[in-house]
């Protein structure tokens, strides 16, 4: 791959990027627009331009709605769920891809099939389990529950990434004296760093944005996560648009920051150094 683009390719590339930006950003722009308006303006004078901008929604969100508490809760839950899930999934994915044992394919299928149950059905039997474990209305309980969708997702995605790495590299390392797990940690993981970042991001955002299970399993206002808090801004037939959009914009920031950091340090740090020159 040439390091620079030809002029023709440049035009096409940047043109397409512009189109991409338009498609992605137009709805986001509209969200930000609404977050900066008062209710009366949202209803009576809908427009595409900023008229009478106000930060009142953001102020209300952080003061009367206690949104920072919700963000903190979401960070704890999503962070813990991601770390645990990615760790155990790395192990499981490696096992399913590299090691051979009798029921390997059945286990793989089981992990996948159990993923097919939609949350809209899962939540009732899950409530029974969580109640028995005494984990209702706690963040720990929520983290445990999030492993239900995080683990199969991460495992299968990582299987896809691991499979793309040639087995020879690990065999070479093991001949040189490394153990299996050492091969996993020192060869496979660095090479699949982009994949690890992707999986971590998806697990994190999945947990960050999950609504139904969080709604059912938390009752106290001070352990509500972000999606639940936003949902509470809809009472019956009243949508508090300004607050909802302000909340959505605010809540997207930590996710974007984490993705940026993960890209920077994991992909460009690890992968760049370990690709054989």
């Amino acid at each position, binding site marked *: 791959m040439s390091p*620079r683009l030809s002029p023709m390719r440049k035009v096409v*590339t940047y043109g397409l990027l512009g189109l991409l930006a338009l498609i992605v950003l137009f709805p986001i722009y509209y969200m930000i627009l609404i977050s900066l308006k008062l209710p009366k303006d949202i209803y009576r004078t809908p427009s595409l331009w900023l008229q009478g901008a106000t930060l009142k929604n953001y102020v209300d969100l952080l003061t009367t709605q206690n949104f920072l508490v919700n963000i903190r809760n979401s960070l704890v839950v999503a962070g813990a769920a991601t770390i645990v899930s990615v760790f155990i999934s790395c192990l499981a994915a490696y096992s399913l891809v590299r090691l*051979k044992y009798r029921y390997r394919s059945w286990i793989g299928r089981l992990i996948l099939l159990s993923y097919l149950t939609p949350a*809209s059905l899962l939540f009732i039997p899950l409530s029974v389990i969580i109640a028995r474990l005494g984990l209702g209305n706690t963040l720990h309980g929520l983290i445990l529950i999030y492993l239900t969708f995080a683990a199969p997702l991460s495992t299968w995605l990582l299987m896809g*990434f691991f499979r793309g790495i040639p087995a020879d590299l690990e065999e070479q390392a093991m001949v040189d004296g490394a153990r299996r797990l050492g091969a996993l940690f020192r060869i496979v993981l660095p090479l699949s760093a982009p994949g690890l970042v992707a999986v971590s991001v998806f697990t994190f955002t999945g947990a960050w944005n999950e609504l139904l299970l969080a709604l059912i399993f938390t009752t106290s206002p001070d352990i509500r996560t*972000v999606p639940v808090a936003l949902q509470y801004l809809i009472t019956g037939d009243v949508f508090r648009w300004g607050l909802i*959009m302000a909340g959505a914009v605010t809540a997207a920031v930590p996710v974007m920051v984490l993705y940026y950091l993960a890209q920077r340090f994991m992909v460009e740090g690890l992968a760049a150094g370990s690709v054989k020159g």
Partner: protein
Amino acid sequence: MVRDRSRAVTRPPGARETSGQATRKLTLSLTQRNSLLGYLLVAPVLVCLSLLVVYPFLFAIWISFTDRTVGAEGRFIGLGNYAYLLWQPSFQATIWNTVVLVGVVQTLKLAAGLGVAVLLNQPIRGRRFWRGLVLLPWAMPAFVAFITWKLLYAPQGGAFNLVLLGLGLVDSHVDFLSTKALAMPSVIVATFWRGFPFWVISFLAALQSVPRELYEAAAIDGAGAWQRFHHVTLPSIRHVVLVVLLLSTIWTTNGFENVWLLTQGGPSDATMTFPVLAYLGLQSLRIGEAAAVSVSMLPIFAMLALFVAKLLQEE
């Protein structure tokens, strides 16, 4: 383990031909050790799943054969729920709508995902910015994304109509969600917008993992850009494509907020899908029926899942 030295050595495939007693000792017990390690490594995920998913999964299948309502043990009624559902005209429309919605959306996401990933893998300025940008639709709760799209589509005062009327492209407002012919395409577009970041980021990660040497070798052999893409890129990312296709299809088929918030399954069942039907069953506290709706999707899912699993687990 020392005793096994007399047994014929079954070398696990892929092991290098090496010499030396030390290596043979390692190779002899490798199969057993690998098995044990294999089970051990996969154990945590399995434990989680058996506790949290297998029981609910079996529970759902069980209650779909009963007339259970919330708080009351149901009686076993065999295929009663399924018979009731099949007979409903809503159900027939539901099957068709679900197939159309999922089929079209997944195709769009595959094309766009691959295209955008390739685009972003090029040496462009501000790469990190563009890669971050593409995550945005995914970085908010699903319901926020879809209520925003509801606002965008609103016939009076909605952003799209403001643009269309402002540019003079239409004479009167377009009712995207209530016009029978436009409802499903509108839901499709919104669902695509929300879901394509997953594809782009996964494919991008897969593209980044393709070793540079493979491209260089192909270039030395005289392959052009398209040939390199076809013979190096695609095969290398094949596994990731399959997994993403599978997971995303499951999600999209189970997707609830997109239809519910945009059209509630209307107008007149033009966008009714399985998850919405199941939700309506739950609202009447008839969880046996709701379970039957969800379980009736399973055979197709299972077949798809097993097919992809087979492709992935082939050596």
